[in-house]
């Protein structure tokens, strides 16, 4: 029997499926909806933002992560916050804040503030908000950020914080972190977390729909009377797990903004697409190499220092930023990334911004180090510091070996094992990265340089005179930057950064993160919010 399409019902059924695809095409490109499910008055065209971040919780006492803070930033108010483009916090819900005694920090509230449900926002709510973070002490929460707070109380329209350390210059920054959102004391329980679908804030936006890590819809808060008035009344946040779908959707116009995080390859490809804008701003993330001062190569301290300095002369940060990260990172010549107040570039001044093998060789020769020096460098292989860490360290290996002064053996390890092993002196030279808790220089230095530092690479294990940090004289400078303001603080930061490049040099800063967002050509306001705070200020966004 001859095969005949005409007589085959079966093929017709198969064709029907193909027809469904074609039929779908007929409706493609149509603007499906434009309704505002909340019924709020519409201002500006609705905007959809895509992100690969995820949300832990919308109750501030139970979250301390980028995904949650991105929402909290927009639905809650803070006493103080760093405005877009600024480097220091300014009053937000507070009218003014200052030290009334060395250990007392007092904020006076703005009058007539209201939560989105109409409840008045008072100093009592603020004290309640901070106290419940401590009381709940949730494992995923930000209570650790309030380590320097002894107590908090409301006195009329004032909020009074008693601090453990006098003149704590980091405290105003802490008020704008994940620990600082102000919640409604009539709605939030004092001793446990509130479910995501019941949270109430007083920020520029309210949440009108929330499907965790799937979709969130924000509508301008009609009760908000602060300076951050929303330019767009309705913003939707769509959550992705893979950056390739995020990239395709922003490219196709299915979403308006792709914010955190596209891969270097995606960004490189999008730069040549005329339908989108690739926007870059300074970020606060730092990538650096740690030297274990006990186990790194070198027969004595002088040789070890020479090897560290020779490596500093040999790495090419610009090459890493351009060829490995395609602009996602920029060279870092200090432990304080550019964009942070008081940041300088001592590593550039001392070692230059291009590899200098001749200098590297002379440093090694002066210390009597035999070349090539065999280096064993460890890095995190499972994406904890990004999927491109392997490429980054392979490039560093090529750079170091190109000088003929080093031979490099690389070893990648999953972060869980890595984090345990690195503090046991297992790794002589290794990768680490730092995301700041808040954008003050102290957060980039204190955690690395004080005797209780988290690195444990023998730079500052104790306060004995032989400890390298004591020899370098960093501890008095740390105290100075923590407790003094103005010129004295600026001087301390400048000196600390310089010592880190010219003294024992326990760390080699490599790259600091750029923030990248990709938007449609009709979107504005994104560039303004891309700063080291990592705050995504939705109120600045608009669509023409």
């Amino acid at each position: 029997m001859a095969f005949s399409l005409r007589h085959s019902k079966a093929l017709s059924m198969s064709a029907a499926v193909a027809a469904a695809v074609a039929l779908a095409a007929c409706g493609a490109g149509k603007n499906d909806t434009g309704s505002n499910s909340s019924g709020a008055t519409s201002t500006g065209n609705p905007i959809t933002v895509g992100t690969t971040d995820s949300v832990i919780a919308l109750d501030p006492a139970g979250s301390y992560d980028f995904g949650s803070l991105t929402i909290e930033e927009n639905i809650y108010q803070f006493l103080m916050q760093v405005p877009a483009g600024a480097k220091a916090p300014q009053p937000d819900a507070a009218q003014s804040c200052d030290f009334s005694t060395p250990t007392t920090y007092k904020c006076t509230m703005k009058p007539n503030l209201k939560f989105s449900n109409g409840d008045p926002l008072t100093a009592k709510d603020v004290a309640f908000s901070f106290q419940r973070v401590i009381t709940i002490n949730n494992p995923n929460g930000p209570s650790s950020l309030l380590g320097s707070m002894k107590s908090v109380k409301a006195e009329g329209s004032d909020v009074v914080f008693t601090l453990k350390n006098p003149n704590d210059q980091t405290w105003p920054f802490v008020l704008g972190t994940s620990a600082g959102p102000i919640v409604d004391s009539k709605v939030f329980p004092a001793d446990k977390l509130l479910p995501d679908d019941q949270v109430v804030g007083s920020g520029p936006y309210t949440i009108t729909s929330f499907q965790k890590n799937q979709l969130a819809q924000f509508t301008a808060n009609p009760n908000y009377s602060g300076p951050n008035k929303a330019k767009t009344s309705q913003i939707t946040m769509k959550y992705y797990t893979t950056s390739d779908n995020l990239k395709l959707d922003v490219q196709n116009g299915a979403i308006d903004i792709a914010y955190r995080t596209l891969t270097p390859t995606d960004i490189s490809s999008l730069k040549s697409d005329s339908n989108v804008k690739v926007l870059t701003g300074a970020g606060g993330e730092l990538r650096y190499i740690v030297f274990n001062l006990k186990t790194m190569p070198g027969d004595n301290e002088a040789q070890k220092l020479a090897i560290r300095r020779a490596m500093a002369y040999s790495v090419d940060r610009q090459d890493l930023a351009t060829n490995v990260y395609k602009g996602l990172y920029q060279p870092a010549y200090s432990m304080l990334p550019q964009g942070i107040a008081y940041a300088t570039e001592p590593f550039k001044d001392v070692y230059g911004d291009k590899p200098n093998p001749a200098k590297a060789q002379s440093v090694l020769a002066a210390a009597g180090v035999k070349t090539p020096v065999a280096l064993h460098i460890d890095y995190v292989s499972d994406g904890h510091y990004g999927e491109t860490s392997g490429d980054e360290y392979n490039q560093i290996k090529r750079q170091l070996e190109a000088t003929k002064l080093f031979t490099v053996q690389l070893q990648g390890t999953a972060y869980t094992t890595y984090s345990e092993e690195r503090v046991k002196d297992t790794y002589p030279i290794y990768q680490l990265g730092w995301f700041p808790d808040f954008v003050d220089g102290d957060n980039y230095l204190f955690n690395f340089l004080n005797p209780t530092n988290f690195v444990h690479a023998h730079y500052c294990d104790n306060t004995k005179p032989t400890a390298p940090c004591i020899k370098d004289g960093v501890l008095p400078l740390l105290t100075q930057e923590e407790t003094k303001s103005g010129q004295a603080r600026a001087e301390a930061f400048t000196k600390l950064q310089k010592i880190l490049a010219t003294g024992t040099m326990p760390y080699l800063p490599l790259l600091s993160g750029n923030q990248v967002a990709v938007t449609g050509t009709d979107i504005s306001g994104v560039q303004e919010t891309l700063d080291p705070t990592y705050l995504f200020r939705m109120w600045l966004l608009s669509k023409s």
Partner: protein
Amino acid sequence: MATTKTSSGSLRSYLITRLLLVIPMVWILVTLVFFVLRVVGNPIKSAFGQLPPEEIARREHAAGLDRPLITQYWSYLKNVAHLDFGVALTDHTPISEILRVNGAATLELTFWAVVFALAVGVPLGRIAARHRDRFPDVGLRLFGVLAYAIPVFFLGLLLKLLFSVQLGWLPVSGRASPEVEVAINEVTPNTHLYLINSILYGDNEYIWDVIKHTILPAVALGLLVAGIFLRLVRVNLLQTLRSDYVEAARARGIRERRVVRKHAFKNALIPVITVMGLQIAALLGGAVLTEETFEWQGIGYKLVYYLGRQDYIAVQGIVTAIAVIVALISFLIDVIAAVIDPRVRY
């Protein structure tokens, strides 16, 4: 009459036996999941390895992970028996909530994938059998092998590149456009099945939006099983066409097309039902990759999400739930097969 009694009695005893077998099957599955995940490592350290040891210890105590393993196991079994699969460590979401919300998404995707697989695999298998060893048969067999062999995520990428990026006909990912998704999740009752929700919402544009988002994931996943159905129907139909009763029909002068349609085809479909049961596990496995490829927020998507965050409590809960679902569906398929085909119960 006596025959009917014997028949229904054997069916009853068959079903009871099968039902009783589900219990040890589920027990073995949940036990394996529990101990395999404990072998992998400490769930708290995996999820929060960067925290100080004292904080890790505090969290282990809070999660009951500092108790003897057998105590943990007993508590876990009791909770599973009450359908309590725990709470995710990283984002506090109850696993039962994930099963309710994301499970509906997987159900919807799997349903449409099966519809597609049947719509494509069964008729094409019939055509292949009718044209045995000729060009259509060879071509369709090749198609069947390719459909089965091609990795589902790769097929998904190809479909996206063609229909979404190049042609711009269909959306890249998701279950609906963001605005539609927000709106249809507000309907009452919220079934979490988007096609039903969009119908309840009553806007044709929304229904169309949901259908457009469903096509590519359903095709990608459905093709995997369509290839199996195609080959199965072909083989069974060829066997049936050689059987005595079909020869008898031919001898009576009935035309070949009618012989195939009326006498052979229905009987050839019986094994497909049994194989469908076996394919449920394959479909759920394929759904993990399909959901990831298309950002389809089903339980497979959530499984990958929590694996990425090394949240083994969530992984344990989801895998246990999937194991229970597969066991129950296998039982249901056995029941259906036994009702349709009396040979099964003897």
